[in-house]
């Protein structure tokens, strides 16, 4: 897009990790240049679909994911099977993990690994406890 460089910045939270790229927002639609898309999410827009390394995800035929104004972020999320929450006014969006990916992992009964901090800021992962039985407790002060 020849005019993409003049687009204002937009924050995409990719599974919570913020990346800031130029994008244009009109109505609720967020459009990025191919370059910004690749920069933000690592996916390259190709005629056969969205590609990252050797992996390509086909776009639904007839779906107008790309126009003269760029690639539609919602179309990208749909093609990847990932949820997208958008706040056009705040120029931010959260790209989550799809139900398919989460359901496959849980259906396999492999406890998903995570890394989280304790009060001292030290990070702990579930996988450090492999070889032990674990009682994992989610609680809250509310």
């Amino acid at each position, binding site marked *: 897009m020849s005019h993409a460089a003049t687009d204002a910045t937009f924050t995409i939270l990719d599974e919570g990790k913020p990346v800031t790229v130029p994008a244009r927002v009109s109505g609720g639609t967020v459009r990025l240049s191919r370059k910004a898309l690749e920069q933000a999410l690592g996916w390259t827009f190709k005629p056969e679909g969205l590609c990252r390394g050797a992996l390509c995800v086909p776009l639904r035929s007839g779906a107008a994911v790309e126009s003269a104004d760029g690639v539609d972020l919602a179309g990208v999320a749909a093609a990847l099977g990932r949820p997208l929450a958008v*706040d056009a006014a705040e120029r931010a969006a959260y790209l989550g993990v799809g139900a398919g990916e*989460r359901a496959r992992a849980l259906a396999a009964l492999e406890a998903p690994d995570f890394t989280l901090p304790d009060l001292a800021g030290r990070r702990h992962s579930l996988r450090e406890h492999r070889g032990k039985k674990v009682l994992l407790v*989610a609680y809250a002060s509310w």
Partner: protein
Amino acid sequence: MQEELEDRGFTVITVALDKSPEDARPWIEAARPTHPSLVDTGHVLADLYNIVNVPTVFWIDEAGRIVRPNDVAFGTDTFKHITGLEAARHLGALRAWVRGEAPALPTGASARELQRLPGETDQQARAEFGLGEWLHRQGRTDAAERHFVRGGELAPHDFTIRRGTMPMRGIDPMGPQFRAMLGEWVGQGNPYYRPLPDTKG
């Protein structure tokens, strides 16, 4: 429990789904735990494990497999009059499993069948939460509110969103607004806690 069983190759890991480490600090410091006591402000664990309320407990074996999926257990009997769940019962079953004296689930029960899987709406609600939580951290509280509300509308069974965001929104999570929400939900015949069948007894 931790001290009693850690020599048998066992650990507890607790994860607080709280808006800040400071919210979790009094709880953790009062318990003075020797096990990892973690804080999860972004609800990473809720997303990974399809957690929709607290407390939620999982038993994970030596190979990293979920042998007892999303269940409800309390460390004390403070809420027994509401929940009907006895702390001692879970502790007894856990102790027997750790010692190798009893299986994680009753004979005939399958962890795979008991493991609830998230749907697309659940994950959309979690994306709304994620956006709201980030906006809140930026001080953009009005915008955050929109996404917390939307998340709760999409997944009304997900109290990590509906109740868990209340402290960020200046709402008392034990107050009248919570009680009204709970009353409406339960009045429609929905469960607030969802223990496994053998926990329910």
